[in-house]
């Protein structure tokens, strides 16, 4: 019901190529998250899918139908924006109903759908209010409600939670996850928040500088990144990269995640001094300056007392060490 296929989509703003040939397939009901550094073209790709931006070349196919020249309102999509983008002059109810009204849906049907959406998102008490009279979290729920009532084939979210505070972000994230489970709709979600990507996605698409670096499930990307970029982007704290030559390895770069290193007071592979320790309660991040490996991060589960200046030995787990070639790709 809501499949999406993107074939070789390119987008240039004048001489600047922002999307450099994107190929992607999303099957019905999937939750796909686009992640990537700022300016890599995530929003642009989403806008091309929505039809708010014309692609320079390539095709967008929704539900088996080429929509490359279809206006946004006719594509069967709904979009939730980072800035909420509610109509300031309309009440919550009319904000949600406007799209349906434009499509000449019967009033009874509009009311029915608004009723369902507002109970789903607990918006009933606010239906007669204007956006100015709502809190940030309520506004974003209205924006989500506005998308839900359209019953689209495809939901598009562009960083919907980044204007909310931390606690609200967790709540709304849960709500979106539940929404996806309940509606079984196809959703595409842009974020640069690791946690959102890992927790929500069926499939993560890692973008970098207008290209797709890797597509895969959250655990797939975590366990077997295709290249140095994905390895560094997925996982927090970031993976340690060590020059292969310094360790006497043939690979250009060696990568170890902070959680795959163990420390010992007396012996180990890399001797180093503690530069800084971050105590987070559930785990401790140690920054070690090692003679052989340079500055590395070690993540220890639980509390670990280490004073800056102390000497420690770090040892990588050989089964979870990644080797990257000169082109950045993983060496098998």
């Amino acid at each position, binding site marked *: 019901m809501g499949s999406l296929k993107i074939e070789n989509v390119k987008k240039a703003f004048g001489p600047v190529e922002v999307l450099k040939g994107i190929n992607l397939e999303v099957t019905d009901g999937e939750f796909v998250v686009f992640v990537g550094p700022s300016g890599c073209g995530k929003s642009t790709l989403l*806008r091309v899918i*929505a039809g*708010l931006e014309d692609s320079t070349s390539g095709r967008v196919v929704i539900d088996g139908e080429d929509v490359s020249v279809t*206006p*946004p*309102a*006719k594509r069967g*999509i*709904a*979009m939730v*924006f*980072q*800035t*909420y*983008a*509610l*109509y*300031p*002059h309309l009440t919550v109810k009319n904000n949600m109903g*406007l*799209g349906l009204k*434009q*499509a000449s849906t019967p009033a009874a049907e509009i009311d029915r759908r608004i009723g369902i959406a507002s109970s789903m998102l607990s918006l009933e008490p606010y239906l007669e209010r*204007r*956006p*100015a*009279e*709502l809190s*940030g979290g309520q*506004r974003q729920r209205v924006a989500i409600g*506005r998308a839900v009532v359209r019953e689209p084939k495809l939901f598009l979210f562009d960083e919907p939670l980044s*204007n909310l505070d931390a606690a609200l972000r967790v709540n709304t994230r849960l709500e979106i996850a539940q929404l996806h489970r309940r509606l079984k709709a196809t959703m595409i979600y842009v974020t640069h928040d690791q946690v959102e990507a890992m927790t929500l996605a069926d499939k993560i698409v890692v973008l970098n500088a207008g290209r797709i670096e890797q597509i895969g499930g959250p655990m797939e990307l975590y366990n077997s990144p295709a290249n140095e970029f994905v390895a560094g982007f997925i996982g927090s704290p970031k993976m340690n990269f060590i020059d292969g030559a310094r360790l006497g390895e043939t690979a250009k770069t060696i990568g170890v995640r902070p959680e795959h290193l163990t420390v010992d007071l007396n012996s180990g592979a890399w001797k180093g001094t503690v530069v800084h320790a971050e105590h987070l309660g559930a785990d401790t991040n140690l920054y070690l300056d090692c003679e052989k490996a340079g500055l590395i991060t070690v993540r220890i589960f639980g509390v670990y007392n280490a004073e800056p200046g102390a000497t420690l030995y770090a040892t990588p787990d050989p089964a979870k060490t990644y080797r990257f070639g000169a082109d950045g790709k993983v060496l098998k």
Partner: protein
Amino acid sequence: MSIATRSLPRTIGAHAILLTYTAIALFPVILVIMNSFKSRAGIFGAPLTPPTPKTFDLIGYTTVIGQGDFIHYFQNSLVVTVASLFFVLLFGAMAAFALSEYRFRGNTLMGLYLALGIMIPIRLGTVAILQLMVASGLVNTLTALILVYTAQGLPLAVFILSEFMKQVSDDLKNAGRIDGLSEYTIFFRLVLPLVRPSMATVAVFTMIPIWNDLWFPLILAPSEETKTVTLGAQLFLGQFVTNWNAILAALSLAIMPVLILYVIFSRQLIRGITSGAVK
């Protein structure tokens, strides 16, 4: 505002400067209004004193009202100003929206071209405009004035409004597009209300020169039928004898409508936008 500016000497200094400025700005206006209530002898005898029971005289106002046509001149001025204002705001906002919203070839050049009029006074083209009006049979009509004033007001309007329209959230417009609103609806219902304060600014800047203009009414529409207030007031300004009472009364009356329009627009300026659409 910040704590630092709240110290006493600074407050006194700031108020002194502002009060001085207000006094200077209001002085001529008050002088005109004051003297419009005085007899001729009162005006010349002691122009700076307010009307006393001895010098108080409404002769100026009775002359102006008695002149009959003055009401008509007022009407003309009002029609010309309001109509020009309407067209300047409508077309100015539309052009500004197109320039700020759509990427098309020659966008920047078009913007520069439309803004050029800010630097070139329209009066340089008076002769050509007159010829044009004669050729199209529009001499001595209010339409001629409205057309000229619309042209005169547009450059600044486009320039100012396009800056403000660029600041209207793209997301809001895009949300409208996804909901199937036409570009016209997006412009009139979503964008215009959000730039209302800047529209009011433009309205004030556009309105005052039009209301006060003497040049174009004199050249394009000097007939009795189409005279504006400013032109009508010249009636009392003779080569040998000037009826100061009447002129001052006419000027005092002429201030009123602009003042009313100004109050309307400045309330818009102050009210600001209803926030909440966008964080």
